[in-house]
């Protein structure tokens, strides 16, 4: 399986990453891009991570996704450092023969990344002090709710 996992300060080129997932036998490429959401005077986010552990955690999530769905490729790129409102933070993308696997694997990877990879966000407001973001219970529920390859709430559909 084609795999690109990276933690970097630099911006990523989404079009190039998605193009790299295209290959013979691929019928669908799904992606999620997380961006810095503005509002309430937020000027930027600052992200830090645990070098070494983060890479291992993301590799493990990619292993899990590949074991659950028939993937031809997988991209997980997460940025760190200072990111202004509107900048992209994270890209998750997967490729498969059919759309269902690519869409589900992409949702799985971002849900799991939010609670199982050691990243921390702080919010910056103008010149004021950074404010560390608190973890959300809804993210934990989303990550733990994956059963039978279906996202939380979808098991009865």
């Amino acid at each position: 399986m084609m795999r690109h996992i990276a933690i970097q300060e630099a911006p990523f080129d989404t079009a190039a990453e998605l193009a790299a997932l295209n290959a013979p036998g691929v019928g669908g490429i799904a992606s999620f891009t997380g961006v810095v959401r503005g509002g309430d005077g937020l000027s930027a986010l600052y992200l830090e991570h645990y070098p070494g552990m983060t890479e291992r955690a993301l590799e493990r999530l990619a292993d899990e996704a590949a074991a659950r769905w028939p993937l031809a490729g997988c991209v997980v790129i997460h940025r760190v450092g200072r990111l202004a409102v509107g900048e992209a933070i994270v890209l998750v993308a997967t490729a498969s023969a059919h759309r269902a696997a690519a869409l589900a694997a992409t949702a799985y990877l971002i849900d799991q990344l939010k609670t199982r990879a050691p990243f921390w966000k702080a919010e910056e407001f103008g010149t004021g002090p950074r404010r560390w973001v608190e973890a959300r219970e809804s993210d934990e529920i989303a990550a733990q709710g994956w059963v039978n390859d279906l996202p939380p709430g979808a098991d009865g559909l």
Partner: protein
Amino acid sequence: MRVLYFAWLREKTGTSAEEITLPAGITTAAQLIGWLAARGPGYAAAFANPAVLRCAIGQEFCPLDTPLAGAAEVAFFPPVTGG
């Protein structure tokens, strides 16, 4: 043993990483938190509420009651907020 601090624990302790010799009688991450909290005001502030802390031993997430035996690297941090 190498001890790492992230996010507001790094800011409150004033350090991102340090080497410590595990004191006698300290066998779990939770006990290490108690010992670290007594090292000074910054550490006391960082470790005042263990319920909001998470840890990793050998770069794997672990409950705070996990034994430290044989660990070369322990990290303390708040719940993760990536993505």
